């Protein structure tokens, strides 16, 4: 597949905005969906809409097959050891909340410590803060090194006999730097501490092998990796998932229910209370097929590298601009930056009228903004369907916007 052929799979990219071609560079917030994902959802709604797992009738069997088939696809995508280790959720946030609650319930007590990094999305901070408040535990913060990556040595120094879990991001949604997750996990394991990896961005840009990383939990959302919104995954090692109590009660998460006491279903159902998002979860199959197809595609790799080169060069060489998250060898095509003398919101507003969709603000990472000493940034994040021409148009538009403001 060439990049133009890939673009043709995404009809929304042809939508004009204000009479100009759309240049969609807010992919880190949500990716666009290929037609195959739209078709999958439509086919299920139109042809196989029935609640899963319960009924014996034909439609229910079809819906259940599609849903459980998606579980197999996720398992193979991240190379999990068993399909029971794949729990469907509504997104990365829900996945992390599940662990913070259930793991916290079983293993975190008063006086214990939980480690998160300063580069986390709010979704990988607040659930842990809530856990610490509930249990009287302490939240410890892992500071990044000067260029914004997490350092195994710094982590090692932070761990002690009270540390019960480490929660870190694979790739920061602000800095766009790939963290050395495997090394971080190794350091934590050496101290006997399990690790949750927030893979919301990592799953999109890296080939994830949870057995190779050896992480204990890996959380991600479907909508950032081309699937329908409201889909999400929690990978958890079986030994932890077995030892954790359920997060929510009700639906198919039970074995037997008596007023004298309830026993719970086996994995992964134990963590899937209530009616599941059975029309949407199967869209993970065409979505992950697409993600696999583009990851190793030479044309896409070349285009992404060219985008990284041209944008990185401009944003680091232009004296009016400060790029946060430098070091090209670990960088994905995601750029957060400030323009001296221009407010990020003004820039985003003007770029929007030029057809360029970028993100402005704190990007759900206020502590990181404080760490960087800024009130907000402008972010452009690229996907495999973006082109070098779009990158150049974005840079030209940015120049024009800066000219208007400064």
């Amino acid at each position: 597949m060439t990049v133009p052929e890939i673009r043709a799979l995404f009809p929304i990219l042809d939508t004009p905005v204000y009479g100009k071609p759309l240049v969609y560079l807010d992919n880190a917030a949500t990716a666009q969906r290929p037609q195959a994902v739209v078709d999958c959802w439509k086919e299920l709604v139109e042809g196989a809409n029935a609640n899963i797992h319960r009924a014996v009738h034909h439609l229910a069997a079809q819906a259940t097959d599609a849903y459980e088939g998606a579980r197999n696809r996720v398992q193979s995508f991240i190379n999990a050891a068993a399909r029971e280790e794949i729990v469907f959720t509504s997104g990365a946030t829900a996945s992390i909340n599940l662990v913070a609650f259930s793991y916290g319930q079983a293993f975190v007590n008063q006086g214990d410590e939980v480690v998160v990094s300063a580069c986390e999305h709010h979704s990988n901070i607040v659930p842990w803060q809530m856990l610490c408040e509930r249990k009287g535990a302490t939240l410890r913060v892992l500071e990044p090194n000067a260029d914004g990556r997490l350092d195994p040595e710094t982590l090692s120094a932070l761990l002690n006999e009270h540390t019960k879990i480490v929660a870190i991001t694979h790739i920061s949604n602000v800095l766009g730097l790939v963290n050395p997750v495997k090394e971080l996990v190794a350091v934590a394991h050496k101290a006997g501490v399990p690790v949750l990896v927030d893979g919301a961005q990592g799953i999109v840009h890296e080939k994830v092998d949870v057995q190779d990383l050896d992480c204990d939990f890996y959380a991600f959302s479907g909508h950032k990796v081309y699937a329908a919104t409201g889909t999400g995954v929690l990978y958890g090692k079986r030994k932890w998932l077995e030892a954790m109590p359920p997060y929510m009660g009700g639906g198919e998460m039970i074995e037997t229910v008596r007023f004298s006491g309830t026993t719970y279903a086996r994995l992964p159902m134990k963590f899937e209370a209530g009616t599941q998002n059975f029309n949407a979860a199967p869209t993970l199959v065409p979505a992950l097929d697409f993600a696999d197809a583009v990851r190793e595609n030479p044309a896409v790799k070349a285009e992404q590298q060219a985008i990284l080169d041209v944008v990185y060069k401009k944003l680091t060489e232009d004296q009016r601009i400060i790029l946060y998250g430098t070091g090209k060898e670990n960088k994905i095509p995601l750029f957060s930056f400030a323009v001296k003398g221009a407010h990020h919101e003004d820039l985003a507003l003007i770029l929007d009228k030029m057809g360029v969709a970028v993100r402005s603000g704190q990007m759900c990472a206020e502590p990181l903004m404080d760490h960087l000493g800024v009130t907000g940034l402008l972010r452009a994040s690229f996907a495999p369907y973006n082109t070098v021409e779009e990158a150049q148009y974005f840079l030209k538009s940015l120049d024009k916007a800066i000219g208007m403001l400064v």
Partner: protein
Amino acid sequence: MSLEEKKQQVIEDFSLYEEWLDKYEYLIELGKGLDAFPEEKKTEDRLIKGCQSRVWLDAEERDGKLYFTADSDAIITKGIISLLISVYSGRTREEIAGDDFGFVAQIGLKENLSPTRANGLVSMIETIKKLAENGR
């Protein structure tokens, strides 16, 4: 110039620009031309809540009329507040409190802002009205 005449003038000025990019350019010029706002006045109680960028608004009463000063760290927002206070500065409390601020809709400002900015605009209008009704 009466309040009605001033509003009409703003509507006409705005209609000179067809493209929204040009309208922004006009707002940016307005923002840049706004009188300096003293740093010591940038206090929490003068900050308008509900804006993503920071906006400060102050009012002084002289001879029965309100005079507004303002600032923002975002220039388009500054242009918008500049536009608003150019219309409402030098008016009586009754005039301001009794106005429906409908001209903002007539120039299509709210519809062409991002949702967060549109909320900010609503907050600016509410703050101007509140200052007219209650004073600080």
